[in-house]
């Protein structure tokens, strides 16, 4: 039973380590997060997506806007240290991996990541 729940969770959530400072102060270098791959995205959500220029590389940025045809405009919370839609433009929805929903490391800052309203 516990194992089944764990397997289900594995399918829906993927753990990621954050690397870099473009999402500070919300996400810091070395944070561990769970990403909900079954969740839709709204403006304000932190999104994990494949880099449109280098698809094997996955990025974390915040959704700024979503166009009527689903393309997403993303930006770092720390724009001075961020390469985002200002550089590579809006991204197609197929590149989205999911929404960062839980931080589980470091323990002091662990918790659910609230969604923007």
């Amino acid at each position, binding site marked *: 039973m516990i194992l089944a729940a764990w397997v289900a969770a594995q399918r829906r959530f993927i753990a990621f380590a954050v*690397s*870099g400072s473009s999402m500070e102060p919300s*996400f810091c270098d070395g944070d561990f997060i769970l990403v909900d791959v079954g969740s839709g995205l709204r403006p304000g959500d932190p999104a994990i997506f494949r880099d449109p220029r280098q698809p094997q590389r996955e990025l974390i940025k915040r959704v700024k806007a979503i166009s009527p045809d689903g393309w997403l405009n993303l930006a770092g919370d720390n724009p001075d240290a961020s390469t985002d839609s200002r550089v590579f433009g809006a991204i197609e929805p197929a590149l989205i991996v999911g929404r960062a929903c839980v931080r589980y490391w470091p323990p002091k800052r662990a918790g659910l990541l609230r969604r923007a309203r």
Partner: protein
Amino acid sequence: MDLRKLFAPTRVAHAHCDIPCGIYDPHQAQLAAHSVIRMVELITALERSDESTAEHQIARYTAVKEEHAELVKREVRIIWGDYFKPEQLQEYPNLHTLVFEIMKLASTARQQINKEASQSLLGKVQEFAEIFYKTKGRETKRVATVYPTGGELVQPV
């Protein structure tokens, strides 16, 4: 047991800038300003016993003067445009004016054989260097150079 290692994810979400370098230093701008002064000195002191040799030397000194005046502008522009943040401007409200003066003096130093302009250029670049190091939380000192131009370099302490 190292809990962090145990829970470490295998996938990485990159939150980077493409070029996260953070390597800025006004040292190069100061060297270039000294080079401009030196070229003015060499041009002014040139002996003209052999005309073709003198012309050749003038051409070389002028080319280097042009290049280094441009280098001052480039180095200062990079620090001003890429490093400085709006918050720092509040603390150093004369920064824009200072950079503008550096651009204008560097142009004058390029266009003319002008000792005053090249000395003023160095002075303004030194002021710029002092502001830069202060934003890094470092005090500065002016040390005597080892160059034929004499003068000083601003260095962090």
